[in-house]
């Protein structure tokens, strides 16, 4: 399973904080984005950062592993 986390403004749009996506060997970050994006059209317009296992990634072709944790995040506004 791939754990998918949502925070702040993104969590408000998808109306949940966490979901799971079935892991299939060879799947990429792009596959997860497509899957979630289909379920929640519009949610991704405010996603500015994506982290895989708590590290920001820029390459959507990043290959995922079972039990990876993905976070979709709007622009940060801490401080």
């Amino acid at each position, binding site marked *: 399973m791939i754990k998918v*986390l949502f*925070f*702040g*403004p993104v*969590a*408000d749009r998808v109306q949940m904080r966490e979901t799971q996506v079935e892991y299939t060997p060879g799947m990429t970050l792009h596959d997860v984005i497509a899957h979630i994006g289909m379920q929640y059209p519009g949610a991704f317009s405010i996603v500015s*950062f994506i*982290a895989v296992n*708590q*590290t920001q990634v820029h390459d959507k072709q990043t290959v995922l592993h079972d039990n990876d944790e993905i*976070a979709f*995040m*709007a*622009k*940060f*506004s*801490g*401080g």
Partner: protein
Amino acid sequence: MSNPVRIQTEDFSQDEEINALKVGSKRIGGIATFLGCARDFSEGRDVSEIGFEAYGPMALAEMKKLREEAISRFALLDARIVHRVTTVHAGDNIVFIAAAAEHRAAALEACRWMIDELKERVPIWKKEITPQGDSWVTPHP
């Protein structure tokens, strides 16, 4: 001595943070700090509360990296970063940054760099709760 990098709900004391820095070195000549507080007025609206949400483990990891980078980049003797994640009211403390160095220029520059970088890099989000409703804060470019 408390951890130099923390995310917590409870308030903090500048004196305690400064003392924690000082016990580590007698060579400190200057300590620059930045304290971010909740304002009761933002973008022309009254703000009654500000709520924070963090991607906890990643936020803490980024804050630790930030501290280590600041220490090495500005040759600091020590540094501390504390961010509250809770609901705060006007006047309440939100974030505390401290940089200790032998001389003031490094401390002042590092303090500024850390708060600027924190806002860019640490996954924390702020929601303003106003009489007219809530809204997530969109950072200025």
